[in-house]
């Protein structure tokens, strides 16, 4: 069965700068791939390329069976991406944001509300404009709006950043659950302990190319829990 993500010599130019300088990567369905690498290595660009947000100007790029170089829009509904930014409308309330993005991606309001439940945001915040939320609360909302789409391919860019212990564990759970349900996950992270604990494979990016690739013993037990108090 052909890989779910297939990159061969993929080049991505930002301005004139080759942020990706020939990436070779094949990801099989159900894998949880950790992308690690120095700042500026190209992790975010790689994820954005898989989502068809930036153009691959050279090499092959096939995702979910679609050739991105031919059509970048076909796959999007089946992808969920959590980026550095939270992609929320400041003035809209938490609920409105999650519902809008859910419906925009073809999911229902029910999915949205369920997702919102899942990220366990205090109820008093449901009808607060997201502009007023704290960093971590905001990222939780963002997570919810991705969750509501129930994607086949998850692209997570530093999903743990800004989240507290509970939320971090939640992210790990969600990732494991998604993979168990047959979805595939690419996650870029600098929190190696946590990320390596959930990833089945570790790919190292450096200078816009793949520098290392190794399987990890798929851990199913939760990561070493912190002192539970005050999450």
């Amino acid at each position, binding site marked *: 069965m052909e890989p779910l993500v297939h990159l061969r010599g993929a080049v991505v130019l930002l301005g004139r700068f080759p942020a990706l300088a020939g990436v070779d990567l094949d990801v099989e369905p159900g894998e949880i791939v950790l992308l690690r690498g120095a700042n500026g290595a190209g992790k975010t660009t790689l994820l954005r390329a898989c989502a068809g947000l930036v153009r691959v100007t050279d090499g092959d790029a096939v995702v979910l069976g679609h050739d991105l170089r031919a059509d970048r829009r076909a796959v*999007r509904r089946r992808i969920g991406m959590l980026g550095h930014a939270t*992609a929320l409308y400041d003035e809209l309330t938490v609920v409105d944001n999650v519902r809008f*993005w859910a419906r925009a991606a073809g999911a229902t309001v029910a999915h949205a509300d369920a997702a919102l439940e899942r990220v366990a945001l205090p109820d008093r915040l449901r009808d607060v404009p997201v502009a007023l939320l704290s960093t971590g609360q905001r990222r939780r909302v963002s997570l919810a709006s991705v969750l509501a789409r129930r994607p086949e391919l998850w692209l997570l860019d530093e999903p743990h950043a800004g989240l507290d212990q509970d939320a971090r564990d939640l992210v790990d759970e969600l990732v494991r659950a998604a993979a168990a349900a047959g979805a595939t996950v690419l996650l870029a992270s600098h929190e190696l302990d946590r990320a390596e604990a959930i990833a089945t494979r570790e790919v190292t990016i450096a200078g816009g190319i793949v520098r290392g690739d190794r399987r990890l013993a798929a851990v199913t037990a939760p990561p070493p829990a912190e002192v539970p108090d005050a999450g």
Partner: protein
Amino acid sequence: MLADAALVAGKDLRLEARSRVLLNQVAPFSILVLVLFAFALDVEGDTLEVATPGLYWVTVLLSALLAVQRSSAVEAADSNHDALRLAGLDPAGIFLGKAAAVAVQLLVLEVLLLGGVALLYGTEVTGVALLVATAVLATTGVAAAGTLYGVLAAGLRVRETLLPLLLLPVVAPVLIAATSAFELALGGRSGEGWAWCGLLGVFALVYTAFGVLAFGALLEES
């Protein structure tokens, strides 16, 4: 496509409902511009009567600029723009939705302004049918063109300033046609005015059609 349009338009209108930007800020702004003009031009008493329709539409266009900027700013913020693309919405739908939202807001504004003009400049309103038709068509055209350029500028940090440059010359013909139509309507010669209205109809049609076709390309690229 229409479902997507409705969704997006609903979102933008809800944004306006929450932030009240148009109501609390753009509207007073345009009234203000009118007042300023009144000051700046009322050198001879009659200048004003003559120039009213022109000033009205200049004011509308300036306000339209703000509305369009706002509409494109909300997408530019926090990479919502990327999220819209990722959602896999039909680009034509997004275009129609955002254009519709802008148009609705502008129409509300125009009614207010017309009141303002009648009040400030002592213009009495005649030829309502023509006025309404003109307003609707002109607004549609402006909203369509504005939304189209809005997405082009959305990715850029220079949005606030680039948009006016691109948009105004495009909508200038609308300004002229609408002005003439208003002159005739207020002059009680609606009959001749309808020709202009037709012209505006053509504009609106062309820009809307063009937007439906071209928006996708821009959305992907910016």
